[in-house]
């Protein structure tokens, strides 16, 4: 089930911040439906993305945001990830759920996909 974020139809800018907590190498990419890649993590950021403007509320209303994080772990260790959204009706902190996390049999190669719909 996709998460949603209430943004309204105003001229306010919607911002996203991705916080990843892991001992492994991580890379995150943010895709906005029908726009493409709007943000990427750097080689030293550990998969985190600082607060980034997604777009004007009126422009992105009804669109989906897909945030995908790829991780390689040196050892089994639980990964912490959450998404901070602001600029809408209220600020929201969305956490990853079990459904978002997929790994290989070893548990060392992990993909976390979060889909957020702007409503």
């Amino acid at each position, binding site marked *: *089930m*996709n998460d949603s974020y209430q943004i309204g139809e105003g001229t306010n800018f919607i911002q996203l911040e991705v*916080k*990843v*907590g*892991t*001992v*492994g*190498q*991580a*890379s995150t*990419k943010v*895709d906005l439906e029908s726009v493409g890649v709007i943000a*990427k993590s750097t*080689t*030293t*950021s*550990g*998969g*985190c993305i600082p607060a980034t403007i997604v777009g004007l509320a009126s422009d992105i209303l009804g669109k*989906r945001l*897909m945030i*995908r994080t*790829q*991780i*390689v772990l*040196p*050892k*089994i*260790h*639980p*990964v*912490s990830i*959450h998404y901070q959204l602001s600029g809408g009706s209220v600020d929201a902190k969305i956490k990853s759920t079990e*459904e978002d996390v*997929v*790994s*290989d*049999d*070893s548990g*060392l*190669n*992990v*993909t976390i*996909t979060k*889909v957020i*719909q702007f409503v």
Partner: protein
Amino acid sequence: MKTKALITTGLLLLSFDSFSQEQELNLKELEIPTSPAFILLDKAPTTIESPNTGKAFIVSAINAVSEADGIPKNYAVELTPFWFFKNPNMTAYKYFGYNPETKKQTIWKDISKASFSVAFVSEQDSINNVNLSNVAVGGRTRILSTWNKKDIADYNLVNDSLISFLESRDERMSQEIPDSLAWSNREEYNKRVAEFLERDAYDPILLKLKDDLNHILNRRPLFAIDAAIAYNHVFLDNSFDNNRFGRFGAWLTTSYSQVLDKNNGNQMYLNFYALGRYLRDGTTVENEQYIRQNYFDLGGKIEYEYKKIAVAYEYIYRLNKVENTFRSAGILKYKLMDQLAITCSFGKNFGAENNLVAFLGLNWGLNFGSEQVKLK
């Protein structure tokens, strides 16, 4: 019979290895668990252990093959909580101990990886000749450590390559699995992502990078200070009410490791250690009574390490009010194969009587522990 028991014990412990590694384990990975609880009870082949950061969960056992048909009866369990809890502020660089923005090392990085241990050791009481059950609890942590400049340069290189690989993985994933599937049919999307990851995990480039990364993370730090504390209580004749104080100890170990083959994979080291230890001992018998004494141990160890072999000499001087004494011993460790190594030590132990150190043991190096069987 002894050989059979030895092999059976080894196989039983090997079967616990749920996190089997693909790459060859080095000697550092194979070191027998050095839980402070075991060290306090003098069950380690060396008094100055090569400090190591804790593994998630270690079960270890020590016993003479000549006793109980080689089935260990002395056990220790060591747990490192760090590996079981989420850390929202952790990154790969913080885990390694380097800040790429400031280009400075984070020398306190391992404090959060403190481990805690419990040991159970059975012995005979020297006064009453009844069964003694030693229970010891301990904790240890690495206070600080620093890397060589080359370790940091190598880590940066591998980190960048791994991030590039992950970016490429994401692109390949997008080409193979439509992004829209993530919201239209999540079950199907997750199934296809899992299949993709399963295949991608065996990509030779990834395997090489992971191997390189593990080798860097397993290198010895240039300099490290480790702290440990342990307490031991003794229960007599299997009675909970019949108990007495055993030992208490707190010690600091500093280590300096000089790489001798910087351009050839960091497999040859010359290690120097210094130990400072306070012991409150309640195991000495005087007039058929156990008395309590304070010991202060000061010592050092020099160790040459090359791939599968480590040769060391340690000397520890013990100060106390009654008599000053010392321990002087040579130690040899040799890795026979992955997950199996041999350790032996020979020399003089503390005190004037019963002071021969003669130890030969096999180590099963497991990812979450190792097993040692003492051969007499």
